[in-house]
C-alpha cells in the first residue's frame, strides 16, 4: 500500500522538514501505533518530524488547509492513549526538537524545545545547582512537551506541586498554523487570563506546544530517605496520616503494597524489601540540611508508633537509591508475571486511602483479577495495577469491568478519575463520572477557542456530546 497522503501533500511536507522526516512507510509507522497504554493499536496516516517552531507552523498550516487532523506526540510514554492518532490523523512528532534553547541560572528559568527529555534538563541544570522539579516515573525518556500536555506529576508533588506550577511560558502552534506566545517568566502572571495554565494538561487538544519555558529550583542542600516496613497497608496509611497531621511536609510519601513487594522481589529488580511485608512506605525529606535529621527522627518515631516493624534510613546517594529502587522499578517488575499490565490512575482524599484500597481489593476479587497497588500516598494518588493476558478476551472484559468499578469507587470517595496520567482515549468514558453536561460543554467551548477547526487531537479527553432528544 502506498502512502495515505496525497502525493503532492507528501511532497510539500518533505519540502518543509526534509525528505527523511516524513514517515509514511507502514512498517515504520508501526512504532507509532500505540503508546504506553498498550491496549490500543491505531496506526497513523503519517508521521511528520519538524525540527523547529517555524517548520511545525508550516506543517500545521498545510495539514489545516487539507483538513487533516493532527495528533501531537512526544516520547509515547503516555498511559492513556493520548498520543494515538485517530481516524487517519497525522502525528506531529517532537523527536527532532531536542534543543535546550537557554538556561538562565540567575533567573532560574530554562527554555527548551518540546522534545527535550525531562531528565536531560535536570542534568543540564545540575552544574548550576539547579534542577527541574516534576519527576514522573518515565523521566529518563519522557519529553517536556508530553509532560505539559499531561500536566505530569511524580512522587515529589506533595511538597513541590505538579508540572503546571513550573511552566512559565509556551510557544504554541494553533491548528491553523498561527504561532502564539503565551506567558513568559518575565511577564506578570496576574492581570490576565492564565492561558499557560489552561494549555498545560490540554493533552494536545488545544494546539502543538513547540517551546516551553520552565522554572528551575535550587537543588536541596540535603536529603533524608526512610523506608518503613509494615505488616499491613492500614498501618502504612495511618503512618502517612500521622506524618501529615504532625505538621511535617515530606518531599515524597510512597507506599508499595504486598503484591507489589512480592513482584519486585521476585524479579531481577529485587530491592531487598522483606517478602512477607504487608506494605512499605518510602518517606523523603529535603531542604536545609540542619533540619532534616530532626524531621527524619520524628517521621521514624511516627512510623514506629503506627506499627512499623523496621525503619531503614539512608543518607548517602547510594543508600537512597537502594531504598527507592523498588518504587522506581515497580511497574517493570510485573513484566514476568503476566503478558499485559494496566496501570490505573486515580486520586482520592488522603484520608480515604485505606477505605478505597479495600474497595479496590474487593473489586479485584469479584472479577477474579490480581490487583497490586503502588501509590503516591501523600497526595492520595493511586496506581492500581491489573495483570492479565489480552489474548484472553473473557479476562480482558473482566479487566474493563473492574477498571470502571475502581474509577467509580474513587469518585464516590470524593476523588477523581486521573491524577497524572490524563484522560486520552482510555478515560473519556469515565468523564461523566466527575462532570455533568455543563462542565463538559464548557470544556468543549474552551477547546473551540483554541482550535475552531477541531483538528487538534480529535476524539480525546472530552466524550462526544449526548445526542439531543428531538422535542
Amino acid at each position: 500500500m502506498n502512502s495515505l497522503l496525497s502525493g503532492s501533500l507528501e511532497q510539500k511536507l518533505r519540502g518543509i522538514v526534509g525528505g527523511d522526516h516524513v514517515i509514511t512507510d507502514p512498517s515504520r509507522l508501526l512504532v507509532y501505533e500505540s503508546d504506553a497504554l498498550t491496549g490500543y493499536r491505531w496506526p497513523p496516516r503519517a508521521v511528520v518530524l519538524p525540527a523547529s517552531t517555524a517548520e511545525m507552523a508550516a506543517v500545521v498550516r498545510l495539514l489545516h488547509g487539507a483538513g487533516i487532523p493532527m495528533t501531537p506526540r512526544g516520547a509515547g510514554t503516555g498511559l492513556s492513549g493520548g498520543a494515538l492518532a485517530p481516524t487517519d490523523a497525522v502525528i506531529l512528532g517532537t523527536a527532532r526538537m531536542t534543543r535546550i534553547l537557554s538556561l538562565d541560572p540567575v533567573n532560574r528559568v530554562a527554555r527548551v524545545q518540546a522534545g527535550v527529555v525531562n531528565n536531560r534538563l535536570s542534568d543540564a541544570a545540575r552544574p548550576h545547582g539547579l534542577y527541574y522539579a516534576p519527576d514522573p516515573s518515565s523521566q529518563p525518556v519522557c519529553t517536556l512537551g508530553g509532560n505539559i500536555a499531561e500536566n505530569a506529576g511524580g512522587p515529589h508533588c506533595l511538597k513541590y506541586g505538579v508540572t503546571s506550577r513550573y511552566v512559565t511560558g509556551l510557544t504554541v502552534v494553533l491548528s491553523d498554523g498561527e504561532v502564539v506566545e503565551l506567558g513568559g517568566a518575565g511577564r506578570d502572571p496576574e492581570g490576565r487570563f492564565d492561558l499557560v495554565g489552561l494549555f498545560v494538561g490540554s493533552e494536545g487538544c488545544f494546539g502543538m506546544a513547540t517551546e516551553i519555558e520552565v522554572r528551575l529550583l535550587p537543588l536541596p542542600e540535603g536529603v533524608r530517605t526512610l523506608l518503613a516496613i509494615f505488616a499491613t497497608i492500614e498501618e502504612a496509611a495511618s503512618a502517612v496520616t500521622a506524618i501529615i497531621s504532625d505538621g511535617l511536609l515530606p518531599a515524597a510519601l510512597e507506599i508499595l503494597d504486598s503484591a507489589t513487594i512480592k513482584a519486585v522481589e521476585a524479579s531481577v529488580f529485587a530491592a531487598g524489601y522483606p517478602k512477607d511485608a504487608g506494605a512499605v512506605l518510602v518517606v523523603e525529606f529535603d531542604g536545609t540540611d540542619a533540619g532534616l535529621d530532626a524531621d527524619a527522627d520524628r517521621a521514624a518515631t511516627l512510623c514506629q508508633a503506627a506499627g512499623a516493624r523496621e525503619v531503614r534510613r539512608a543518607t548517602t546517594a547510594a543508600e537512597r537509591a537502594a531504598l527507592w529502587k523498588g518504587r522506581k522499578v515497580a511497574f517493570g517488575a510485573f513484566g514476568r508475571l503476566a503478558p499485559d499490565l494496566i496501570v490505573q490512575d486515580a486520586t482520592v482524599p488522603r484520608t480515604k486511602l485505606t477505605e478505597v484500597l479495600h474497595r479496590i481489593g474487593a473489586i479485584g476479587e469479584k472479577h477474579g483479577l490480581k490487583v497490586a497497588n503502588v501509590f503516591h500516598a501523600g497526595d492520595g494518588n493511586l496506581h492500581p495495577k491489573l495483570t492479565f493476558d489480552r489474548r484472553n478476551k473473557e479476562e480482558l472484559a473482566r479487566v474493563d469491568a473492574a477498571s470502571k468499578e475502581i474509577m467509580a469507587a474513587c469518585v464516590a470517595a470524593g476523588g477523581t478519575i486521573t491524577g497524572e496520567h490524563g484522560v486520552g482515549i482510555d478515560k473519556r468514558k469515565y468523564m461523566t463520572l466527575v462532570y455533568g453536561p455543563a462542565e463538559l460543554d464548557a470544556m468543549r467551548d474552551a477547546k473551540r477557542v483554541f482550535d475552531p477547526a477541531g483538528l487538534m487531537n480529535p476524539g480525546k479527553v472530552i466524550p462526544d456530546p449526548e445526542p439531543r432528544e428531538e422535542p
Partner: protein
Amino acid sequence: MSTPAGTVLAGLLPAEALRAPGDVEEWTVGGAPPEAVAEPSSVEEIKVVLAAAAASGFSVVPLGARTDPGPEPPRGRFVVLSTRRLAGVEDYQPADLTVTARAGTMLATLGGALAERGQWLPVDPPFTPGKTLGGLVATGAAGSLGMAFGTPRDHVLGLSVVTGDGRVLHLGGRVMKNVAGFDLVKLMVGSRGTLGVVVSASLRLFPRPMEERAVVLEGEGPGALLDAARRVATAGVVPASAVLMSPGPGGGGSALVVRVQGAGAAVEADVGKLLGPSLGLAASLRGTEAQRTFEAVRDHAARHTLVLRGFALPGLLAEVLSAVQDAVPVAALAADVMSGRVRVGVESGVEAASLTRLRARLEALGGSLVVERGAPELLAGFPAYGSAGKAAELGRALRVRFDPLGVLSPGRFET
C-alpha cells in the same frame, strides 16, 4: 428611560439581598458608582441578578471585600454583586490538607480556623486578612510567598462558579492531583469577574512553619541593597520570601527583608547563613516584631492612591528600579527579589505619558506594567493592563464563551 437597576432587582430579590440605596457610594468601581449593590446568599439569587442584568441592559461587577476592585470603571450601567453573604467554611479536612469555603469567607476567618489545626494558606497579597476567598481566587493575587509556595493558581483545587449566562460549573475537585479534563480552574483563577462569579473554592493547605524569622538589612536606598539581595539567592538558603522595601519597616531608608521558616535547627542554620560575614544582614526579628515587619512588606506600597505593579525577570531588578525611579515620584516600593514583581506606591501628579514611557522601558526588558489602583482621569489616557497581542484575542474569545451576553465586568482588561 430604562428602569433603574435597583428597582429591577428590588422586585426580584428578598430585601436583605439588596443594600440600601444610600450605601452604594462606597462601592464605586474605577470612580463610577453602581446603580445598586446586590448581596445574594445563594446560587439561585446570583442567577437572578445575572438574568436581570441581561434582560434590563445593565452589567454586573462581582466584588468581595473591595481590597482590590481594579482600577477600570465598568462600561455603561452596572450593579455590584457582593459575595459578603455567601460566606462560611463548608468542609475542612485537616488530615487531607484541604478546605472548601464559600466565596465571601474572609481570609482572616479562614486563616483562624486553619491556625487552630496548625495549618495555613501561604498567600500574602496586600491586605490579605481583609480579603475574601472569592476575591483571592478572582484576582489570583500572589504575594511575596508565591515563589516558595505557589500562587492561588497552584493552591485552588476546585471551584464552583456561575457563568455570565447563569450556568453553574463545578470545576476541578478536592484532591491534590487532578488532570480529568481541561483545566478551567486555572482559567477562572485571576479572571477578575469576567468569566463567572465564584461561589466557593477548594484549596490545598500547608502545615504552618514551626518557626519564622524576619532577617533584615537596612540601607540608604533600595539600590544599595541590591547586592545583598543578589547574594541571598546564592547563600544556600531557600527563603519563604525576600523583599526589598523602601521606606524600611521603621519608616526611613530602605530594607531587605528575608522571611525564613522551618523547624528550629533549620531556621537557626538559615539565619546564620544570612547574618554571616558574606551577607552581613543586620538583624533577626521573631514573634510579633517579625509578623509586623511582614505586614509592612505586604501592604505598605499598596496603600497609595496610585499603585503600579511592574514585573520583569528578577535578575533585571536594578534596571527595573532605575526605570521606576526615573519615571515616577516613588512614595513606597516593595520589590520581590524572588519573582521580580515590584509594587510601587506613587505620589499624586503623575502624567499618563510618564506611565507610557515606563511601560515601554519595562516591556523592552521583557517585562510588563499594570496599574493596580489609580484615578479614572489618569486611566483614561493609560490602559491599566496593556496589550497582550494574540493572547488578548484568545482571552476575548473565551469571554464570549463564558459570558456570551457580555454581562460580567465589561471594561475589565479593556482599558
